[in-house]
Every structure is written in C-alpha cells, then in structure tokens.
C-alpha cells in the first residue's frame, strides 16, 4: 500500500510538515516493497486551490493513506472520493519516525 507523508524537507530526517496542500515535499512510501520516493510539491505556491491540487497530485500516484500535521477543510470530500484516508499527526516527528511507526 502506498502512503504519502508531507515533509518540510527533502530527506527522511526532516520533520513532517504541518500543512497538506502547501507542504514543500511529499514523501511517498510503499509499505510492501519499503521504497520511498521524495517529490517537491508543484503547487506549494499556487495562488489558489493548493489543497485540491495536492489531492490530485497524490491521488494520481495511487496513494491510499495520507499523513500530515493538518488538512484544509476544502479537501475532505475530495480525499473521500479519491479513497484516501487522512491521518493527522503532530508535526514534531521526523518522516523516518512515521515510516518506522507504519512498519510496526
């Protein structure tokens, strides 16, 4: 299963980003083959609609779970229709710590 984690930086040692739509990086993690892929958020600085654009971005990568510090209210219905579960975590953890939790 593919999971996306919002990250404040481009490494696994960076902290989870508190925002979903406007996070700097997305970390895609596959719980089956343990592969990670780190991609910059192309819509981080969008004038409007960064949240919906982010849902579109992660949904096109067949993500089933998303983990972030916060999700904007506009995207709940889009996440539901894309079949992506939203999990809110405290943004004081590193991405690596979240991945370790996923594996336990």
């Amino acid at each position, binding site marked *: 299963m593919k999971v996306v984690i919002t990250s404040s930086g481009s490494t696994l040692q960076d902290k989870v980003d508190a925002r979903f739509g406007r996070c700097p990086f997305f970390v895609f993690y596959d719980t089956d083959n343990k592969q990670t892929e780190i991609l910059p958020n192309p819509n981080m600085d*969008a*004038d*409007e609609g960064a949240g*919906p654009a982010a*849902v*579109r971005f992660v949904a*096109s990568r067949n993500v089933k779970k998303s983990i972030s510090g916060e999700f904007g209210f506009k995207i709940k219905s889009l996440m539901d*229709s*894309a079949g992506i579960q939203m999990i809110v975590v405290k943004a004081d953890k590193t991405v690596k710590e979240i991945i370790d939790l996923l594996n336990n």
Partner: protein
Amino acid sequence: MKIAIASGKGGTGKTLVATNLFYTFQRMGLSVSLVDCDVEGPNALNFFQLHKVKVISVKEYCPKFDLQQCIYCGRCADYCDYNAIFIIPNQSQLHLLSHLCHGCGACAVACNNGAIEDSEIEVGIVSLFSTTMEREKAFLVEGRINEGEHSATPVIKAAINQGDSLNTDFLILDSPPGVSCPFIQTVAKTDYVVLVTEPTPFGLSDLRQAVETLKHLHKPFGVIINRVGLGNHDVYDYLEKEHIALLAEIPFDKKVAHLYSEGNLLVTSQPIMSKYFESISKKIIKNGNSSC
C-alpha cells in the same frame, strides 16, 4: 467625470460621503448618477426615495462537463490556473470546484474532445433606480452579489457599465473597502479618487496601502478625514509629508452617526453640512478636471 469614493479601512464613511455628494451634485444642478459598487453589502439606496427602473442579471461563464465525451486526459486541469478542476484519470473522476473557478474559459480551449460545453451561471444582479428628489433626474445603480458567490469583480464591472450607459456628466462610484481586486475594479477607470479615512492607527495603516495602490495605478486622489477629534495627529503628518490634498474634515459627532444610522443625509438635515459638501464637490470637480 468619474469619481470613486474609496478607503482602505472599512467603515470610515465612504457611503456617507458618496450619498451626500450625490445629493449635493444634484442640488447644484449637475447631471449625476451614483453606482454602489460595494456589492457584498450595498446600502446606498437606503438614503433616497427611489423608483426601480430595471434589474439586470449578471452572468459568468461556467464550464459544463460531458463525461461521456471525456477521456480524462487532464488537459483542462493543466490549463486551469486556479486549480478548479479536480481530476483523477485512473479513477475516471472529474469535478469542477466551482468556488475556485474564475470563469476564464481556458479549460474549454484546452479540451480537444468536445467534453466541455459553454454555460453560464448568475453571480449577481444590477438594479437601476431613478430618483426625482431634485429638479435634475438622477440615477442610482446598485450591484449586489448573489449569496455564496466568491468573485465580486464581475458584478462591480456590470454595475459600472450600467452607470456608464446612463451618460450623466458625473458618475460617483461608492467603492468596496480594502485595496484588493474589488477596489481596483472600481477605481480602474475613474478620473479621480476620494479616499475616506479616520485619524486612527488603523485608518492610517489602511490609507497608506490605498495610497500606494493608487500611485501604482497613476490615479489622482485626495483625502477626506472623517471622525475628526478621534485618534491622533499621525494621519495629518502623513498627508503633509506625502503632499496629499486634504479635501475635507468631518467631525466625530454623535449627531452625524444618528442621522446616518436612520438613513438620513447630512446635507438635508444640517444647513452647515449642505454648504460644506458644496465646497467639497467643487474641490473634487476642480482637482479631477486639472488632472484629466
């Protein structure tokens, strides 16, 4: 001549000034109309005896998707600058996020499969009223955005167009507060802007933003200070430093607030105000003409 009454801060007295100027222009025998561009909260019509002439529906482009024709290529979403099209190709999902749509029509240009039909939605209404309070016939135009709609600018544009078509010598535009798109849309084609402020830190802070914006737009303007007696002297220092014309001062007076809240004009209730607004009107016309 087109004159906008604007301000950065809300509640400084734009409508107070606009409605009293409108009446004063009429009494001076000038041909004038007033356009209430504060489409999210229009209230200028409360101050006049009016007769409704007509109502116009303001429509905006809104794409309509034919999902039978759609191949989920995503070109429409790529063309959309506002992220208003939500598409997940591998799930054959496509939704229009209407609160983000600006009605630009780029998606329809992008689509090669005839999956986007042109359609329109009503975003607001423009009402035209005539007033025959004075000898000269004058009109009041009111723009009013529909509840739940997000973009005020198309309604403001339609209201100003209606005002233009009346061909009166003077058009007074009562602007929405702030210095964002609705303000820009209102002042864009005016000859002169009157900024109404109050001598408080908030009043000054927002006045500065309005001044900077107008300088950028190369618009001539002057300032009216309302609620004089309140706050401090900083607004005056600012005007002096920036060499900005101070057109008038309206005192901080409970009577003014009472009259306004009951839908009365200052110029019809207080003879001294009637004279004062006549001198303000002359100043505005003179300043507007010299900068044309």
